[in-house]
């Protein structure tokens, strides 16, 4: 908690960051497993990729693996390859976990078999309410090099922490939103001349947002937890017109908590005197044939509760400039002109 509050110290000291050379001879490739299994079918997926040497800017995915999740209670689900390393439950298999059951992930790549330790699915903890608070945060949209300070909504949740047991939580989100763009202001990239487009200015997008943030109830056991800050959404893009946000509250295991906590610690570390030195993030995947092989990643099993809210631009009492995108809105990733049902 405290570490998070300290990133500014080095600014005070006129600190600066410069690149240094990496010793490329020591660079290695490892399998990276990102596995999620919950009691909500659409949240379940496995992503397989390989870690890359520094200096290589390319992604490498594993597309030919056989991925299965099975339980001590006899459940068995096959995941099949989609694209970009993602594996989703195969059509027809209703891959929904049951809290209390213990699950394992199997990944067969070539003649190597990778397996997770068994993980129990914890009982979900209900979200009582979702609130919003105006705040400012540094944020970078995909494709932007520098973070900038933007106004937006902090998404806060309230819930009751069950007493008598240790609980660990993380959050994920899906957001469905409408954007208005300016195709009439399009500038041709080669000529540099205005080249107005006729279509389209209204689009709908759907995004999944994952958060590394995890919390434990070491300091809040058995209390009603209020205003737990779980997400920041800048007004500019997400809240320009209308947004339907679903918050998923994952009840995770202690091992999973530790995994994400160290991962987050690394993400927010800025190398200051207050930061712990970086450390290996130990996951729960291993190679059955070779225990010494380092496999990166975690098979996270969680019991999930969710809550959906709709936010309208008109309801936000804060002046902010409209989203600026001088092009056909369909150019935006995953954008569609089709109005979603119940919009």
């Amino acid at each position, binding site marked *: 908690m405290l570490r998070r509050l300290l990133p500014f110290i080095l600014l005070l*000291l006129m600190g*600066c*960051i410069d690149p240094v050379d990496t010793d490329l001879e020591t660079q290695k490739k490892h399998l990276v497993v*990102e596995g999620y299994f919950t009691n909500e079918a659409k949240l379940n997926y496995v992503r397989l990729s390989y870690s890359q040497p520094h200096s290589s800017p390319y992604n490498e995915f594993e597309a030919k693996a056989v991925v299965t999740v099975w339980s001590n209670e006899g459940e068995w689900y096959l995941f099949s390859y989609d694209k970009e390393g993602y594996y989703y439950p195969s059509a027809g298999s209703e891959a929904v976990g049951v809290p209390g059951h213990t699950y394992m992930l199997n990944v067969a790549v070539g003649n190597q078999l990778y397996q997770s330790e068994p993980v129990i699915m914890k009982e979900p903890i209900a979200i009582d309410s979702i609130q919003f608070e105006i705040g400012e945060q540094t944020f970078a949209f995909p494709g932007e090099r520098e973070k900038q300070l933007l106004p937006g909504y902090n998404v806060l949740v309230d819930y009751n922490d069950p007493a008598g047991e240790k609980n660990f939580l993380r959050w994920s989100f899906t957001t469905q939103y409408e954007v208005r763009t300016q195709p009439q202001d399009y500038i041709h990239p080669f000529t540099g001349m205005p080249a107005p487009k006729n279509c389209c200015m209204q689009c709908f997008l759907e995004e999944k947002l994952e958060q590394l943030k995890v919390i434990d109830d070491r300091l809040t056991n058995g209390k009603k937890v209020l205003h737990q800050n779980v997400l920041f959404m800048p007004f500019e893009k997400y809240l320009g017109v209308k947004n339907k946000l679903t918050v998923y509250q994952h009840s995770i295991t202690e091992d999973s908590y530790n995994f994400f906590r160290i991962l987050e610690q690394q993400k927010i570390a800025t190398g200051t*005197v207050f930061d712990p030195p970086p450390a*290996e993030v130990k996951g729960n995947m291993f190679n059955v044939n070779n225990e010494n092989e380092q496999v990166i990643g975690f098979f996270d099993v969680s019991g999930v509760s969710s809550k959906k809210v709709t936010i309208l631009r008109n309801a936000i009492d804060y002046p902010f400039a409209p989203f600026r995108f001088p092009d056909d809105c369909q150019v935006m990733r995953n954008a569609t002109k089709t109005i979603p049902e119940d919009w």
Partner: protein
Amino acid sequence: MPRKSVALFLLLLAFTIDVWGQSAAQKQYKLSGTVRGTWGERLEGAFLVVTPSDKGVVTDKQGRFSLLLEKGTYTVSCQYIGMAPLRETVTIEGDKEIELTLTLSNFKLKEVEITSRPVSDINATHMGSSFIDQKMLTRMPKLLGEADVLRSVSALPGVVNAGEGTSGFFVRGGSADQNLVLMDDAPLFNANHLFGFYSVYNPDILKSYELHRSGISARYGGRISSILDVSLRDGNEEKMRYEIGVSPISGKFSMDGPISDKFTFLLAFRGAFPGYIMKLFPNSNIKNSSGSFYDGNLKFKYKLDSKNTISFSGYHSADGFKFPNDTTYQWKNTLGTLKWSHLFNNNFTGIATLVKSHYANKVEGISTGEEFELNSEIDLTQLKLDFGYFGLENHQLDFGGDASLYVIQPGELVPYGSSSLNRRRLEYDKGYETSAYVNDEITLTDKLSASVGLRFSQFAKLGPSDMYVYAEGVPRSDVNIVDTLSYSAGSVVQTYSGLEPRASIKYSLTNNSSLKAGYSRTRQYIQLISNTAAITPVDVWKLSNNYIKPQVADQVALGYFYTQEEGWYDFSWEVYYKKLYNQVDYKDGATLLLNPTLESDLLFGDGNAYGSEWMLKKNQGRLTGWVSLTYSRSFRTIAGKTEAETINGGKAYPSNYDKPINLNIFADYHLWPKWKVTANFTYTTGRPVTAADSWYWYQGQIFANYSGRNQERMPDYHRLDVSLNREIIKRGKAEYSGSFSIYNLYARKNAYSMLYQHYYGEAPGAYKLAVIGAPIPSINFNVKF
């Protein structure tokens, strides 16, 4: 003149050595006494020679000396560096006690002042210690207008600093908490001000400091790597003096003098207020942050009679810094030392010291829903008795003991407002440490002398305490607790004790060269639990308990010391080997704050360190200074019972303090009659870091894959500081002095840490973070009247 005086010293020394070889034939009487400086302070290491017998002595720590003489009239000549020589005629008809007061020689002995007792080094039995006095310190280049004790320590051989923005230093491969940092005998738990750019020592009232890193006398204990013994001066006995100093972000005021002929005092106050400079920054994070500190010293000295002196040294400081909209940090140091020095007879002195050191720390968070105050504190009460006996010819006997009580509040979380945090308080961590020691400095022959000591220390961890019993064969963790042993208040939970033998021996090869060897064992019962490289305000001190065993170090050292015939050059060479036991390291991602099962996040193992230190000093001439070069290594081996409690497969790995090459050059050049230029250059190998072997995506973000621990190194550290110092100008009663310094002259961006980052459009890569990336000029101005 300077050359002559040094030659005279050597001559005196030669006499001294010769005299010890002779035996008394006739009835002899004792001449004893105390040598004091201008301000009444006792002078250690003053040379006395008595003619016509040509006997010589050197004063001890208490400024005391004694020697045997036949009946007759003698001339006693006394010399001390920086003081005008003194001659007095003494008639001996029986045992006699005299008091000699030396006065400052002002400018007459200027070149000699700088040498800071180089001559005694080759003849002293102890080794591995460095002495710096205030004059020396104020010549060193300053950062933010202030000469600083802790920063100057890292210019000494065998010492490396923990990085800019911290005041921690590492001695011979040990961690920062293995250094006992004292202010007038009181231990400090955080000697930082303002992110380590200042330390708790006010340079205007500093007398001197000594850093012991090997051959540590049995008188000292409690930490295993080094002792930094800092003394502040007492009020002067002549007249009231005032001193005012200013720099762009700080101000100082001190006054001292006699209240009566028996009673002197000193009062000093200092404050820094960088806030208005921070307001000038365009960045709102800096603009809305703030930091400041103030501290004050108060010293009294009361001479009851010729045999009894009572003195008091008190210190209080308060620090605070705040980041915009979230958290404030505040800490306070309160120290007090009450000392009673008693002269039993001419051969026997005693000092009783009562020490109190209190360190309190408060972190306050003000975010909605998370309002809290986190308080922690540490309180030390110590009683020490030290005796010196000089009655045996060729022996100087020191003995004594101490008892300390530690009461640590490791953390209390107090939520308020709409906070959903639970109130939480960790148990007090209580324990007491007692020790007794005896040390004898023996002059065996005119060439051979030895210092032999033994210290016994004992520690008891006290209740109330809950000790958790963990399941065997699995990593310690709060889920593996099988039993809890509860101890009531005051009951003894665990005791540790052990002997700490110390020995050093000196053999003079010639009049100006000697060989020395030393062995020491040191024990430590309190450690700083910190997963950062430096001491920060959120760290916790922890006493030894059932799981955290006392840290022990064994060190052997060998040295060669040489002083050139006329004292122009000194050369020393020391090698050492150290074995460290029960060293603490951390599990990956350990939780250190408010953790009742802290031991389950700690790892234990052993360490070893070795090195060679060379130092060449030039003491005279227009250019003076030193070059010190160190080659050293420091390793840790953490091989626990389970894999999770093992680091790097149980193999030795470079510790965080392993910086093999360390070069320090300090030069002081007399540019014009009233101006001096000093320069300080530092080079050290980069410290070991855990490096990443690849990068990967996880949850749509890029991470570095770290493996193992401390397998790579950061870029090397080097820096040049320069300073232009104006000699003191006298205008009527006032004395003015000033200096202009530039820290980091060639704008080296030294890496404090290494991190891996990804910017869109580029491959993820390694970056270094520099705390200071620009030259920092500063100016300061002092007036004394």
